[in-house]
């Protein structure tokens, strides 16, 4: 009975939001969000969890605009069908599976909120509506996780606030284009990254509780991941990328599932550009969140199976679409650390399941990535054959669940995210740096790419036949990759500071990856 009033308010709000425009729609959205927040507070007996609603309500209010021309009839029907299918799919799964003591009404409201958001995201009327959909999707997803994994007021409020992240990505006309970031801001980000790296090297501080009950994860692994994301942001010199890096890096440091997932979703909201790629990214993000949610909802071995089986495709969908020059590497790095953290929750059977799905995913990446773009049937695949295959190796490296494999994956992320991305037009032609820059960007020994590939293969050999076979396939493909793509001449002009830094990072981590291993393991 306690949830009946919020459910009625939610349904009314849903109808208003779907059927009307402008301020009426905003009222409907507020009703949906308010009802979900009230439900959270009532069923979890934690009134402070209602703080979650503040962020989505504010973001919805800021995104109100004059109505643009309505969708064509077919598209409108398709969108309605997507919403209905998602809603009924959730209901069907809920009826078929042995759900435990979860507050189903709240989960259902959160699910419908997310489903409506996803439908708006996938088939938007305009960019503003896509952003509004992103707000609802993040809000719905984080509300479902809050219902299953209650956290304090701080965690709930933060999870809600992160739903406002799509506001940050609104000024980007196309993927990859972003306003420039000032050099002092980059220097600050770099300094913060160094600080976090130093903390990671000193062993981190484990799980701590911040004011307002916000649980922080200050493990070396999370600190190293955040540090790497901030370095990517500093290198990018782009505001949107910096914002996404701060969101994703911050989410790595959060122990509560709801704000942790919302941070990654927020980073995707800031970076997602092209519609086709955005669909894949959002599907991936939702699968990443759905796994842990279902493991709690269903419980037992079946729940663990769902968690393991959804983690691999979710991550794969985040890795496949091509993003901007810096956005792709940033998401790659963030999702690598997120999945590495999630792997610790899987049991032996779940890990084995994840490993063969990851191995198959690596082969899928190989097949899709080497097809010509017009035949790949993906809106956009990673920028080069080398990037595709390195991504596959990252998938294999992390799925070994061994420190050596993770180290290899991180080295490959450094190669793709810092070294390759920092000089997309090739290495500088002149100056003393030219040879070193060429070496750092290559797969020859002493580069980060070489060390990463070798370590992934070493780690895969100790894991399973599927992983070693896919690693060999990808490594051999990487040797052939230079022959498959056109020779890239050196770019004119002398090397800049970024070239020096990227070269230094690649060669240092390539020669002495043990430093990074200490950072990942703490001390």
């Amino acid at each position, binding site marked *: 009975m306690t949830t009946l009033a919020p459910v009625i308010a939610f349904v009314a709000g849903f109808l208003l939001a779907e059927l009307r425009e402008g301020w009426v729609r905003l009222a409907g959205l507020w009703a949906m969000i308010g009802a979900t927040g009230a439900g959270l507070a009532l069923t979890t007996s934690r009134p402070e969890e209602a703080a979650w609603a503040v962020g989505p309500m504010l973001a919805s209010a800021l995104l109100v605009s004059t109505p643009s021309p309505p969708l064509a009839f077919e598209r409108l029907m398709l969108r309605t069908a997507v919403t209905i299918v998602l809603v009924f799919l959730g209901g069907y799964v809920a009826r078929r599976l042995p759900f435990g003591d979860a507050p189903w009404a709240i989960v259902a409201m959160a699910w419908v909120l997310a489903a409506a958001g996803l439908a708006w995201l996938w088939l938007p009327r305009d960019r503003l509506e896509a952003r509004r959909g992103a707000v609802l999707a993040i809000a719905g997803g984080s509300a479902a996780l809050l219902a299953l994994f209650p956290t304090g007021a701080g965690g709930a409020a933060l999870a809600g606030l992160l739903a406002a992240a799509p506001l940050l990505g609104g000024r980007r006309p196309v993927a990859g284009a972003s306003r420039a970031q000032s050099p002092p801001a980059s220097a600050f980000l770099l300094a913060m990254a160094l600080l976090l790296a130093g903390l990671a090297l000193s062993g981190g501080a484990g799980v701590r509780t911040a004011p307002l009950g916000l649980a922080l994860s200050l493990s070396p692994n999370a600190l190293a991941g955040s540090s790497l994301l901030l370095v990517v942001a500093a290198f990018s010199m782009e505001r949107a990328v910096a914002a996404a890096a701060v969101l994703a890096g911050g989410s790595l440091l959060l122990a509560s599932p709801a704000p942790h997932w919302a941070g990654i979703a927020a980073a995707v909201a800031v970076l997602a550009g092209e519609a086709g790629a955005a669909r894949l990214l959002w599907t991936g993000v939702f699968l990443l969140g759905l796994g842990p949610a279902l493991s709690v909802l269903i419980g037992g071995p079946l729940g663990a199976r769902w968690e393991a089986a959804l983690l691999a495709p979710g991550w*794969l969908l985040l890795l496949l679409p091509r993003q901007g020059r810096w956005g792709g590497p940033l998401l790659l790095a963030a999702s690598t650390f997120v999945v590495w953290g999630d792997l610790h929750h899987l049991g032996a059977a779940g890990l084995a399941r994840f490993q063969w799905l990851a191995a198959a995913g690596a082969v899928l990446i190989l097949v899709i990535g080497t097809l010509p773009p017009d035949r790949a049937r993906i809106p956009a695949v990673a920028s080069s054959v080398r990037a595709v295959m390195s991504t596959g190796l990252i998938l294999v490296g992390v799925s070994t669940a061994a420190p050596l494999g993770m180290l290899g994956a991180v080295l490959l992320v450094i190669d793709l995210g810092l070294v390759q991305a920092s000089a997309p037009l090739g290495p500088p032609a002149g100056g003393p740096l030219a040879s070193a820059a060429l070496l750092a960007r290559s797969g020859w020994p002493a580069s980060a790419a070489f060390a990463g590939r070798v370590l992934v293969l*070493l780690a895969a050999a100790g894991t399973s036949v599927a992983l070693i076979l896919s690693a060999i396939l990808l490594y051999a493909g990487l040797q052939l990759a230079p022959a498959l793509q056109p020779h890239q001449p050196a770019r004119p002009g002398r090397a800049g500071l970024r070239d020096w830094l990227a070269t230094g990072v690649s060669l240092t981590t390539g020669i002495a990856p043990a430093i990074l291993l200490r950072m990942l393991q703490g001390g």
Partner: protein
Amino acid sequence: MPLAVQALLPFLLLTGGAAAASLPALRRRGGAIAALAAAGAAGVALTLLLRLAPAERVDIPYLRAFPTVDLLIRVDALAVAFGLSLLVTACLLILARLLSDDDRRRPWSSWLLTTAAALGVIFAGSLVLVYALLRLCTLAWSGALDEAAPRGRGLRTAEQIADLGLLVAAALAAAGVGTTAFSGLPSDALGPGTFLLALLPVAVRIAALAAAAERPRTPVLFHPAIAQATLAGYLMLRLIAVAGGRPPGRELQILVFAAGLALAALVSIQAWRARSSGTARLRLAAAQAGIAIALCALGTSVAAVAGVWAWLGVVALTALASIRQTPGSLGALLTTAAQTILPPGFLFVGLWLGTVSLVQRQLEGALIPLWLAAGLAAAAALRHARWPAGEPRGLLSPAPVPLAAALLLLGGALPLAILPWLVIPAARILRGIPGGTLGWGLLGITAGPTAVPTLAAALAAGGALVLWLRLPMRRSFDTAWAGVHPSAPLLRFDLPDLARWRALPWARTAWLAYAALVVYAIVRQ
């Protein structure tokens, strides 16, 4: 001097020499600097060899920067013998190039760096380190920092992919026993399949050696001897040493033996058909490498000596074959004579020891293919032998070649000069050699109850060779052969048309398959 410092000294000399030779002020004297650096490094390697006790193995760890892989130098007689052979060979090639006026390029830095990288492979103390240094060696000889550079891309890519076999073998060994360091690998660490994978780099380097004959000839080819023959030989012997003295499993021994002989026979036929003696000499070096592989597979103490002897000979003979020589010069004749596997050739000692080994194992039937392959190689060498003609000064140019070839012939005739201090200690790393297994003296060597008078055999065969070359019937034989000289290639492959395969809906199929796999992962108990 501490061993840890002495072991690093050759590397310091080579890299220092490379740096000095690339300085603008010293560029004109780059060749002399390179020769001095290589000679100095060879001197250090020689003192290292003399300093080692019999069968002594020393591991010198320097640094652990790479997880699970120490920067580790392995000093034993096998490594030092091959290191010495590599450095002497490099010195010879540099000297030959210095005396040649045909080429104005100055490749000294690149050559010294290639030598340093190859030396690194030889002294590396673990399989992963060997792999990394093999890659560095490929980088050094190709100079292709940019991996997409079109120059030499085929061979480079082939080497890179084949070297992956060694890395996979190392990874599997590490998964099994927890280390890839030679000192920590038990003799059963490499199974037959893993051993075959690890042999891929050897196979591709021998193929590259045979293919080097097809490249445009410069006065001196540096890479076939340094980056291909030496590394193939060393890797083969090191893998045999890791596996306890023989390829693991009887079937694999038969396979390696047969593959080596088949390769030798095939390349000998190609050498016979070669239009120029320079091309034939390089092909013959590959044929001899095939016979050396076969000898390594026999797995006895005598065969271990035979294998080391044969591989050291292959390195030296490849170096001689890599130097352009005037047809009909003294150097060309002596090189051809040294390349005949039968007396007075250098490899005859190895062949005879292999024969003894087969008899010891009561495998007399295997003598037929062994001697058939050796006979083919010898016939191919003799086919391209020419009696020297011209002025005496022309006969002796360039000087290092006839001298080195004569020394090799002398070594083949008097094994006493090489066996005790170079070959036997290296062979002891492969397999224990009980006292009395081998004996040597001025007249020849003995293995168990059988003896061969190498000096007498070399003198007699040398006399017979001179007679054959001076006989008038030789010319008519050449003329007759020229009429039926086949020009078509022995093997020809046509790639199938892949357009039909490309048209298949790969992306959709892959997605569907992956989705089905995810569903199966959920449903499967």
